[in-house]
């Protein structure tokens, strides 16, 4: 289709309903507009060299690279096919400043500017972004914020855990899942913050400041899920790093990135690769401690049993000794009983009566022992072996 207007004349989409020419009774279609812009872009700059920092480079297939070239103000999406990347070799790390030769065009499907690169050459210096990061790094390092002796140990059983992250990201969901599994007794305080874009550093600084104003927070996780290099820039921001360093409680950084560390990682007490990993580090594992308590419980029971077994053995040895020593003195208890029964029998008065003796008692039961106990006619009773006989004294003795 021919572009509806010649490339050398500006298109005025709003030139007025009143002035629609008869051969163009309706508005442009999207594809008509894009086709026109594509023509305009391709005509305006044929083959050019541009200079910029590589970021978010992804390699697909056998070496087709998709990346962004950027400087302080702008960026453009680029593609470099494997025919050309083969001459470059390894993909340059994010932040590398390069010269790129290509033909700017419009990607019709997305209505996006695109720069297909055919030659890429490294520039002498490192990229702007990289340079900025190095400046901040040097400043933080000079103030001793990376010093190993500043690193605080994490609490073993945090009861209150603050999390500074985006309220909408998948990161928050992951954080809650891990907390529920590992240590559901923790209280999670989510302090929402914008984590990418221009406002992110200020928002993060405010959120981290809020954590410092809360009482009783044991540990703070600051982070976000994975993103492109630009998405993670806030975590290289000097203000954000200083805010993390000023936290009153230990901190874990959790910036989901693929390659190099963010400066926030260097300032935090502990660095985790992702928010989920941060939670694994932050919270004790309930299952582990349950097993530990269980094993201590059985050792406790076993310890006491062993102790009582030792004593039991000693006791049974002693009681054996006691039994033998008594046994030696009294012999068989049954024989002893017989002997005692014999002695008892010998002492019984019935036995004496059986031998022919009798006992004489007065009516009141007193035994008659002397002559003076009786006068003539006194009745008394005579006890013999098989009963009693009534009797009377014949006269005074």
């Amino acid at each position: 289709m021919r572009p509806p207007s010649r490339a050398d004349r500006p298109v005025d989409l709003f030139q007025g309903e009143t002035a629609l020419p008869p051969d163009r009774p309706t508005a442009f279609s999207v594809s008509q507009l894009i086709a026109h812009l594509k023509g305009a872009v391709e005509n305006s700059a044929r083959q050019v060299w541009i200079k910029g920092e590589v970021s978010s480079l992804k390699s697909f297939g056998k070496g087709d690279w998709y990346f962004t070239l950027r400087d302080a103000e702008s960026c453009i999406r680029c593609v470099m096919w494997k025919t050309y990347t083969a001459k470059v070799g390894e993909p340059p790390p994010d932040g590398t400043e390069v010269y790129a030769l290509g033909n700017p065009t419009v990607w019709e499907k997305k209505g996006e500017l695109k720069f297909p690169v055919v030659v890429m050459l490294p520039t002498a210096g490192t990229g702007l972004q990289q340079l900025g990061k190095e400046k901040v790094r040097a400043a933080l390092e000079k103030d001793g914020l990376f010093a190993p002796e500043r690193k605080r140990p994490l609490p073993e059983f945090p009861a209150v855990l603050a999390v500074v992250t985006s309220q909408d990201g998948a990161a928050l969901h992951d954080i809650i899942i891990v907390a529920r599994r590992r240590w559901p007794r923790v209280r999670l305080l989510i302090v929402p913050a914008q984590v990418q874009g221009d406002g992110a550093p200020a928002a993060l600084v405010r959120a981290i400041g809020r954590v410092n104003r809360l009482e009783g927070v044991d540990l703070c996780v600051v982070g976000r899920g994975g993103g492109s290099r630009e998405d993670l820039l806030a975590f290289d921001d000097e203000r954000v790093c200083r805010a993390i360093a000023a936290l009153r409680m230990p901190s874990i950084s959790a910036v989901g990135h693929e390659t190099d560390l963010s400066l926030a990682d260097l300032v935090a007490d502990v660095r985790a690769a992702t928010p989920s990993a941060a939670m694994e580090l932050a919270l004790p594992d309930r299952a582990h401690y349950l097993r530990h308590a269980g094993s201590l419980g059985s050792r406790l029971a076993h310890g006491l049993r062993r102790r009582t077994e030792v004593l039991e053995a000693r006791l049974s040895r002693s009681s054996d000794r006691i039994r033998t020593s008594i046994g030696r003195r009294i012999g068989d208890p049954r024989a002893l009983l017989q002997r005692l029964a014999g002695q008892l029998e010998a002492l019984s008065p019935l036995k004496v009566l059986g031998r022919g003796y009798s006992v004489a008692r007065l009516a009141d039961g007193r035994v008659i022992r002397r002559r003076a106990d009786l006068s003539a006619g006194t009745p008394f009773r005579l006890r013999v072996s098989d009963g009693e006989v009534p009797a009377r004294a014949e006269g005074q003795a």
Partner: protein
Amino acid sequence: MTSESLSADLRRLEEIVRLLEADDTDLDQALLLFEEGVAKLRAARERLSEAELKVQRVLEDAAGQLKVEDLSE
């Protein structure tokens, strides 16, 4: 505040188990230790039992006051 007591309970429990496992504890002392160990174990298990995770959100109002509100997923 951190659950310092759980940490302390577990440490004391470990100490008690070591003492009970050593041979130079007399029975009276062993019984006392055992009793204390059972109490510590019960307390630790209580703290390790299931719980509903509490998720809250911290916001700042116009007056600069921090507000903590329950967050339902």
